[in-house]
């Protein structure tokens, strides 16, 4: 059985629309995760997570200084 070029192109093209579904799926997944992080970002600014950038990096070093 042999196929003409036309059929080949046809296969190629038709299959691309097939990608729609999976790309949509990946988009939904990625954008929802990104939105989650956006919410996290807003939360962190709102609650003052970044108000003081000087002490947190220093503070983590203090575990080793105990009674």
């Amino acid at each position, binding site marked *: 059985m042999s196929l003409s070029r036309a059929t080949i192109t046809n296969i190629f093209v038709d299959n691309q629309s097939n990608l*729609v579904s999976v790309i949509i799926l990946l988009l939904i997944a990625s954008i929802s995760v*990104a939105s989650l992080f956006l919410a996290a970002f807003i939360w962190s600014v709102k609650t003052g997570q970044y108000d003081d950038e000087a002490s947190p990096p220093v503070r983590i070093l203090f575990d080793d*200084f105990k009674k």
Partner: protein
Amino acid sequence: MSLLSTNTYVQCYHCGEDCDVHPILAHDKQFCCEGCRMVFEILNQNGMCDYYAISKNPGINQRIRVRENKFAFLDDGAIQQSLIVFKNDDETHISFYLPQIHCSSCLWLLENLHRLDDAIIRCKINFTRKEADIVFDQRFTSIRKIAELLTSIGYEPYISLKDIQHAKPTIDKSKIYKLGVAGFCFANIMLLSFPEYLGIDSKEQNLLVIFRYLNVLLSLPVFFYSGSEFYISAWKSLKHGFLNIDAPIVLSVIVTFCRSLYEVFTNQGVGYFDSMSGIVFFMLVGRVLQDKTYEQLSFERDYTSYFPIAVTKLKDKEEQTVPLPDIQLNDTLLIHSQELIPADGILTRGKALIDYSFVTGESIPVEKEMGEIIYAGGKQIGGNIELLVIKEVAQSYLTKLWNREELQKNKKDEERSFVHLLSRYFTWIFFAIAISAAVYWSFHDHAKMWTAATAVLIVACPCALLLSNTFTNGNILRRLGRNHFYLRNAQTIEDIANIDYIVFDKTGTLTTGEYHHIVYEGQPLNKEMKIKIASLAVQSTHPMSKAIASWLNESNRYELMVFEEFTGKGIEGIVENELIVLGSKTFVTDNALEKDIESTVYLKVGNTILGRFSFQNNYREKIPTLIKKLRNHYGLSVLSGDNDGEKKYLKDLLGHYANISFHQKPEDKLEAIQQLQRTGRKVMMIGDGLNDAGALKQANVGIAVTENSNTFTPASDGILQANQLHRLYTFIRLCKANKRIIMFAFIISILYNIVGLSFAVKGLLSPMKAAILMPSSTISILLITFGLSNLIAKKMSLK
């Protein structure tokens, strides 16, 4: 009796300062003073010596002890109420400003405060703001006790009148949210637009449509939320009948958004959502960068930051703590040593020795006799005194100066910048082009009329101008900050570039507050005598006495047999069996009829007056060079509150055109600035004291000079660290370069605009071309502004 010889420099284990001759020994460690040793003892007893392991010699010098009941006012209920952030049955939250915080040891020690007092539950430090948020159980301790505990370990809380009068300024974070939302939407819109640019097959219609509608969805928050920053600002200035730079940007954003919506809903194309959200995102980045704040500095300090929160009032011989605003006329106040005079009053008891360095910059204390008026703002450094209030706090000399009407209004930042003017011309030109394009196409190809006209407006967005402006400003602010010249905001850069007249305060600004420049007249002193005098002088904390000790430059010391200090007069002691007296002329000569000479200390050994030390102002390093550079470009004035003793020297320094005035009261200074401004001068005032505050505020640019960025400065547009004053001319030049950089970047961006326009007028501006133009112009502008401003700063050998 032995000669103690200490040629080696001994560092205090606690604070790292020189230990003089008699280091105090404890636990095999050396301390400079009893105070430092006591802090060490406290920490040692509580097993908290890790304090010394985190940073080297982290402590704060404790030579000047804090008065014992200084914090008694914290027992007052009303004052407590004003300081408490939150309170319930078993916990109270309070926030203290601790200016001494400076290193990681401080952070560690203070956050372990609960180990020094069980009733403290937690102590959290904000290093940037030097604040401690403390939670404690009020059933077992009190605010006063905590303040005293902090003081005992070297972190005396600074509590000022401001703490009751004003709420803490909250930082506006909305720009950051807008930035985050714009960033998120921009990234995703870009992602969804790429397929179309990267050649997605037109047969994948479904996918394309989905991408486009997702883009519409994602652009909504950018348009309605992130962009609101610009709408609000444009609207505000429009209401004032003024077209600022945001106005054309807003127009452009709205046009872009509507056109994109139209394209998507009529299924004609992707629209320009990526360009629009990108622009909004980058412009917000620029604004956030430009708004960089120096949180640890305050440019807005008024007298309330200086004044104590409460004072001791004497009523029927009983001491009573009252909040400052409650002071009334004819109250008698008890002013302790080291306390600030909060209101003008008449000295009714005690000997006043007032240090007006807060007010004038002059640190030689002034003596006041009973019955004399003492003005608010001075600091009593002698013993306790009593004061009869003759003016309420709000009416006193200094406060009144502050409350003058002309100083209350804020300068209108917005409308001053040349950028707005530029954008206005720019906008009209582009409007003209848009209309011509529309007219042209309405005749030739009616269908293209709207496409072309809207495309021109999309391109016409002067966002490149805004970007170059905000990014250059932000970078220049950062560079200046690195060189310890902190500006209140970006507008100040331009104001500095525009000045043509500079007014200096003298004392504390051109000169240092310290008196190391001493001239001795009289019988020559041999080495032996110098050691004797130094041994005596070192015993007193009076600034002049300390200065003499260090001027003598002898490291050996004798032990004193007898020592006595007469506040406001002088000191005497027996050294190696010889009586030595240092002090004012009246004191040394014991003749009350003699007239004292200011800034002079007499020396008497035995019964002979050997000579006198006269103190001269110590001009800051390289000031003459600075003045020589400045006087070629600017009109110069010196306004000094002091006497005219140094008139000649200043005349030589400033050239003959300079205006030099002495005996200037604060309102005189203010008046002088106003006078200059009336003649059309743009004035920069450089000062340091509260007495300059009015002038600083009135001037087009007010720069406060400070010894270190933690000490207090009056309200100003910029804070300059004193040891950097000699580079003032370089800083001004950098500010001037700022404008040139913006102009240059702007010209480049116009080139991009011309490219964009050439597509736009032909009705050929595709989203892809816009998407390429937008980031390439943005990135090249960023590179230009950063590159140029850094290059210029480097050329000027700025850090």
